[in-house]
C-alpha cells in the first residue's frame, strides 16, 4: 500500500498532461530558447510513461527558473543556485519520485557551482538541465560564467577578461555519469537526450544551449549544429573517460569559434547511483522514508528503548 499512488503509475500520458490547463502567460521573450526546453521535457515525460504527479521539477532563479510554472507537475521554485540540494534530498526522501532540476548557467555554474560539483560527485539518480545562454537574462544582460572571453556588458564594459567555464569538463571531473549537450535549435535531439537522461540511473547533466535573442544578440543562434554521434568527423568512445574528456574540450572550445557540437559526451551506465551506494552501506533504508509517515502500521523506534540505556 503506497501513500503516493502517482508513482510508478502505469497509466498512459501525453504532452497535454504536462501542460497547465490554466497556463500562465510565459515571461520568456519571443524567440527564446527556453521554450525548446519546455517542449522537449513535455515530450520526453510521456515517452517514458511518466505521469505529472510522480515528477518533481525543482528550479532555480532566472528566466530558466520559470520552467516549473509552465510545466504541469509538482514543482519547487527554489532560490538562486540551490535547486540541486533541494532536489537531491527529495530524491533521497522518496526515491520513487522522478526528480528533475533546472536552472541557468549563472545558477548552475556560478552561484551554485559548489552544489553542481558535489551533486555530480555523489551521482544522485536525477536529471539536471542547465539552460546555457551565455548571459544573465532576467537581470538584463550581464556577463555570465559561460560568456566568451572579451564579452562586453554593462558590468564588464571593457570586455570580460575571464575564460568561460567549461561545463562539460567540469561535470565529468566532478563525477556526473551522463553528460550531454543539446541545443534549442535541435528539438528532436533535445527530446531524445532528455529522455535518455531521465532514464539514466545516476546524475545526468545536460548543457542545453538556449539562445537569448534579447540580451545576447551577438551570440550565435546555435546553428548550424553538429551531432557528434551522427558526424563521421568525430570518432570517440562515449564510455571512455579520456576520450570523452578530449571530445568535451574540443566542443567547449569550438563553441566560441562558432561551431556547435552537440550530443552525448559521456555515459557511464555501470556506476551505482548514490541511493544504491548509500543503501549498500546500510545508511539508507530500502523502503522510501516518506512512506513511513503515512503507513498506519509503521512501528517507530524509541530512544528510551535503544539509546537511553547507555546513559544509566
Amino acid at each position, binding site marked *: 500500500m503506497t*501513500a*503516493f*499512488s*502517482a*508513482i510508478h503509475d502505469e497509466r498512459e500520458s501525453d504532452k497535454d498532461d504536462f501542460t*497547465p*490547463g*490554466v*497556463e*500562465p502567460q510565459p515571461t520568456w521573450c519571443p524567440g527564446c530558447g527556453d521554450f525548446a526546453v519546455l517542449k522537449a521535457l513535455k515530450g520526453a515525460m510521456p515517452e517514458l510513461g511518466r505521469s*505529472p*504527479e*510522480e515528477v*518533481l521539477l*525543482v528550479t532555480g*532563479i532566472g528566466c530558466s527558473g*520559470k520552467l*516549473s*510554472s509552465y510545466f*504541469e*507537475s*509538482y*514543482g*519547487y*521554485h*527554489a*532560490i538562486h543556485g*540551490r535547486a540541486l*540540494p*533541494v532536489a*537531491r*534530498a*527529495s530524491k*533521497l*526522501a*522518496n526515491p520513487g*519520485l522522478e526528480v528533475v532540476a533546472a536552472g541557468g548557467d549563472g545558477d548552475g555554474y556560478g552561484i551554485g557551482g*559548489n*552544489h553542481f560539483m*558535489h551533486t555530480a560527485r555523489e551521482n544522485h539518480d536525477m536529471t539536471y538541465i542547465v539552460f546555457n545562454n551565455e548571459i544573465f537574462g532576467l537581470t538584463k544582460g550581464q556577463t555570465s560564467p559561460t560568456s566568451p572571453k572579451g564579452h562586453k556588458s554593462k558590468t564588464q564594459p571593457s570586455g570580460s577578461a575571464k575564460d568561460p567555464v567549461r561545463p562539460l569538463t567540469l561535470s565529468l571531473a566532478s563525477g556526473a555519469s551522463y553528460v550531454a549537450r543539446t541545443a534549442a535549435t535541435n528539438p528532436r535531439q533535445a527530446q531524445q537526450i532528455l529522455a535518455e537522461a531521465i532514464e539514466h540511473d545516476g546524475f545526468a547533466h545536460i548543457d542545453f544551449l538556449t539562445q537569448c535573442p534579447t540580451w545576447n544578440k551577438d551570440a550565435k543562434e546555435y546553428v548550424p549544429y553538429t551531432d557528434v554521434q551522427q558526424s563521421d568527423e568525430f570518432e570517440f568512445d562515449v564510455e571512455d573517460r579520456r576520450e570523452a574528456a578530449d571530445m568535451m574540450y574540443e566542443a567547449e572550445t569550438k563553441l566560441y569559434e562558432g561551431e556547435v557540437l552537440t550530443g552525448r559526451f559521456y555515459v557511464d551506465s555501470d556506476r551505482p547511483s548514490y541511493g544504491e551506494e*548509500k543503501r549498500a552501506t*546500510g*545508511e*539508507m*533504508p530500502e523502503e522510501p*522514508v*516518506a512512506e*513511513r*509517515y*503515512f503507513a498506519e502500521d509503521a512501528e*517507530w*523506534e*524509541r*530512544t*528510551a528503548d*535503544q*539509546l*537511553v540505556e547507555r*546513559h*544509566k
Partner: protein
Amino acid sequence: MTDRTLMWRISGGSGDGIDSTSQNFAKALMRSGLNVFTHRHYPSRIRGGHTYVEVRAADEPVRSRGDGFNFLLALGDSFARNPDDEAYYGKEELKPLYEHFDDLNEGGVIVYDEGLLDEADVTETDLQAEADENGWHVYPMDLRGIAREHGREVMRNTAGVGATAAMLDIDTGYFEELIRDAMSEEVAEANVETLDAGYEAAQEFEFTHDLRVPEGSHDTEQALMGGSAAIAYGALDAGCRFISGYPMTPWTDAFTIMSQNLPQFGGISEQVEDEIAAASLAIGASHAGVKAMSGSSGGGFALMSEPLGLAEMTETPVVLLEAMRAGPSTGMPTKPEQADLEHVLYTSQGDSCRVVFAPANVREAYEQTRKAFELAYDYHLPAIVLYDQKLGGEMRSVPAEFFDREPDPDPGAVLTEDEIAEAAHDNSGKYKRYAFEGENGVNPRSIPGQEGGRFLATGNESQEVGHITEDPNHRTMQMNRRLEKLDHIREELDDRERSHQTYHGPADAEHGILVWGSQQDTVFEAVDRLNARGTEVKALGVSDLMPFPELEVTAFLDSVEECLVVEMNASAQFRGLVQKELGRFGPRMTSLLKYDGESFEPGEIVEGFESSIERSQPPAGNMRIVPASGD
C-alpha cells in the same frame, strides 16, 4: 552550595582522556546515589592545550556549576608542544595545574602527576606559597609511573581516579564496573589494575583534608544526559528521520549523535558541501514528506539565512539547530556565548516568520526540540532550537523515566490522497496549497507523488496554487496569513499546562532577574542563595523567544520594582528584545553582561545582583552592568 558538595576537576591536555574520564567519574558518582552536573572547558585544538571538566556532585539537586571548586586532579598536558621552553602561551605542560589556582577554593585538594611535571617547574608556579595561603592540601603522585607499571602510560587518568577515590572515600567498584562495561577484557584488566594501584598509592599519604564524597540515594534510576544528546533524542522521538549538516563546533556534537543513530532508526544523515546545501537538503527532504532537520553554529547558520527564508516563504516545515559560540566571525570556537539571538531571530530578508526556542537544560532541550518539530510541521514554518556550547556540552543526572516517552511521528498538517480528492483545486487541477484563507493561517500540504496534489512551491510571492504574483491584494493576504500563524502558535503555547518559561523564587519578591536560554539554572541557584541570606528576589527564565511570551514577561516585570537581565553577550540583546516586544519597562531593567567565553557562576550573579541593587562598586572579573535605555 553546601560543604556536602564535591566539585572535582580533572585537567590535562586535549587528548589526555579528560572527557571520557570525567564522564565515567560523573556516572560512577551518579550510580552511587548522588546528583551530578558537569561543566566542560576545552580549547580549539585536537592535541594538547589546556582542557578540564568539572564534576559537581551532591546529595541534593545540582543544576549548575559551582563557585570555584574543591578538588583538582591535575594530569599536566602530555601533548605540550614546548615542554622545555618558555612557549608563547606560557609553560603549556604546567597549565593544567597553575591555571586553576585562581578558582580552587580555600581548603581544597590538589593531586598532580609528578611523573609528568618536573619538580623544579612546579616550584616555579608558586604552588607552595599559594597552598599555604589558601590552606590547600597538596599530594604529588607519580601517576605516570603507576600507569606505566600496571598498564600503559595513557592510563594516568585512571590512576588519578583511583587516587581520588582513596582520598574522598569512594567505592572503586563503581569505576571498575564502568571500565569493564566499556573496554575489551585485556584493556579493562590493565585499567582496573592501574585504578587499584592509584588507590593504594594514595593511601600512603596521611590525609590532612576533611573533604569526603557525600552519600546519597536516588528514588529512581538516573541517566547521565548531555544537552546535545537530549536535543538529538528529542528529534528522534519527534519522528525526525533526516538530517543534513556540515561540521562546526559546537553543533557537531548533535549532528554526530544523529548521524550515528539514524541508520538503525530507519533514517538518513547527509554530510554535505556547505551549510547552504545543508539547510536546502533538509527543506527538500521535508518537501518530499520526511520530518527533517539541519543546524550549525553561528557562522554556518549565517549561510543558512537564505534557505531559512525560502522555508518561511514556501511554508516548508524544517527544524534548525543553532549552537552558539563566542563571535563575531570565528570568534572563540569552543567557548559559549549568547550573542546570536538577534542573528537567529531576524536573519534572512523580509519579515521573520519562525519559531525560536532556547532551552535551559537537558530536560527542556529534549522537550522543546520535540515541540519545535510539532509546531514546524503543524504550522509549516522553520522552528529553531537555539543553544550554546554550555548546554550542549554539559551533562547532568536526570531520572531515566523522563525519557521513557512515546514517539510522535505525526507529519502534521498533511493531506492523504483521499483528503486531496475533496480539497479545492484550480481549473487545471492544481491543489490550492496556498489558499488565501487557511485554518489558523495553515493550508495542509500535499506531498509530491500523491495523486491530485500537484502545486508549485516558490520563493516568490504566490497565488493559491503557487503561481507567482505581484498583485498587491494577493500579496497582503498571503503575508497576513503566514504571519497569523505566529499568533496562533503563541496562543497554543500560552494554553499549555506547562509553560516553557520557568519561575523561581518567592512570588511576592520585589526584585526580579530575567534570564534566557542556558543561563537559567545558574541564575536559579543564585536566587536561592540570595533568598537564603534574606534578599527577596525571584527569577523568570525565558525559553520562548519567537513568538515572544508577551503576557508572561509583562506580568513578571509588572510585579517587580527592579529587574536585572542576565545574559552572555555585550549588547544586551535579550533586554533589547523585551523592550521591543513590550514597549515599556526600560527604566526598570538593568543588564548584567558577560562575554569572556566563560559561563556565569552562581556567585557571580549574586555579586552582580548586589552591586546593581546597591549601586555599589562594579562587579569583579569581566562582568559589566549596563542600565537599559528609557522608553
